[in-house]
């Protein structure tokens, strides 16, 4: 195999492109600009950490099936971990979102970072909702019978039946978490590629 042939390989090209976009020192930086010094930055990493706890506690619940937590005190405790990690996740994510808005974090070619964050937020809402309607208790009965009207009114209810517990559970434990994790990974990679948005320059009006 010639050198040119290796250079043309998809794998070689993809690796080069990836390393060019995200060299190791950007992926795992050991320094950061001095302006990255505020309490608001805590909420991004808190959201990520909460997502890890959400997935870990959800995986524990999955081990014994959807109704285990109704009959086992251990299962109920794992459900409590799942609930509170979700609450922390959303709290941190909403503060993170508002913080990034008031930092105008889309500046400097970071619009895609903002957009992946928003889509992750919306996906997470759907993931949480499908969890609420998959609880197999009074809560899920009430929420699903109420929510059906909103979703049915859009026409989506014909394909996304909130009264079908099996369908909702599948969306909750596979499709939506997968989407949320992939989007989160993409969001974080974009943050690493573009770096953290700098403060507004109040006295400089120079070139873009």
């Amino acid at each position, binding site marked *: 195999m010639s050198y040119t042939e290796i250079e043309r390989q998809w794998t070689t090209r993809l690796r080069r492109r990836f390393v060019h976009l995200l060299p190791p020192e950007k992926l795992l930086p050991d320094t950061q600009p001095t302006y990255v010094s505020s309490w608001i930055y805590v909420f991004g990493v808190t959201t990520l950490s909460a997502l890890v706890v959400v997935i870990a506690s959800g995986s524990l619940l999955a081990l014994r099936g959807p109704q285990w937590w109704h009959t086992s005190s251990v299962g109920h405790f794992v459900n409590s971990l799942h609930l509170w990690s979700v609450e922390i996740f959303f709290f941190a994510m909403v503060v993170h979102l508002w913080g990034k808005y008031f930092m105008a974090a889309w500046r400097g070619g970071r619009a895609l970072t903002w957009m992946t964050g*928003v889509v992750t937020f919306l996906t997470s809402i759907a993931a949480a909702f499908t969890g609420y309607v998959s609880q197999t208790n009074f809560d899920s009965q009430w929420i699903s019978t109420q929510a059906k009207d909103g979703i049915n009114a859009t026409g989506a209810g014909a394909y996304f039946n909130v009264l079908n517990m099996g369908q909702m559970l599948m969306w909750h434990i596979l499709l939506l978490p997968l989407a949320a994790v992939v989007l989160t990974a993409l969001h974080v990679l974009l943050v690493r590629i573009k770096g953290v948005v700098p403060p507004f320059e109040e006295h400089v009006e120079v070139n873009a």
Partner: protein
Amino acid sequence: MRTKRFRPDVDVAPWKGGHSPYDIIKEGTIALVVVGLLTLVFAVVFGSPDEPAVTIKTWSNATPVDFAVTALSELNQTSGSAMYGAPYNNASVGQKLGPLELAKWVGARVPVNTVRDFVINPLKSLPDQPVLTADLRQWSKASASTRALWLKDYTKASANLKVVNGQVTVSANNAGPVPVFINDLTQMAQTGALDQALVTQSEFYTTNFTLPLLFLADGSYLSNLAQHQHLSGDQWGMMNELGNYPGQAWLWLYTFWYQIPPFNSSANADVLVWGLMMALSVVLLLVPFIPGLRSIPRKTRIYRVIWREHYQGSAEE
């Protein structure tokens, strides 16, 4: 060479300041440990709610009249499910978003026939019921107009429907097999057999609870319980949770629209609120490209609080 005008809400000047040490792995590890511990503390101190599911058995024993009246509404097709429209049936156009009949266009893709699915089929599953079997045969052979007359007679008399000693009593003399249907279905429900019949109509394995949930939602029992738990729509129920537990607080804006005009009195409230929320979501997504909206952060200067240290340092220089 052409130079672009600097747009403060879009562009950034290259950072020429200093850098400080940053251990991203350590930061992530500490955050994970803190969030893990916080979750643990909340779980230990507050736990989580788990109110058992309502069954048709509990409903029909607790409020048999409500159940019997609901069963009649399924049979005479006046229940919420019977008159719903898509995706369950074609009984109504459904909600409209302006001229758009979204649900109707998609059609009845989750077909529900309340007469067949909620009354006749479950009754057919009861063994050793010679009177009922004869009545079911009479029903199947009757014309639509005859059935309508029976139902009209029974419905008229049902204002005084009572359940005495487990028997549904209604003084309707020309109601054909309807009194037996309502009585037997109520008794079937009280034994728990209807819960099972509704979920296993089509096959042995199932995870689809569309039929029993629709039936439950057509009655008053479930909604009364929810009202008591401050979970109904006009009580901001979409974001509430049982007791004092936090619910889906992130749905506050979605819930908010249902509390105010014109949504709280519109027959198309659901599709209007969904349409509005979809539009707002798109706006949120496209904030970086929307003039005015993307300038708010710069103009409000809240960023000076966020980057307080940076601006204090700049002022000192």
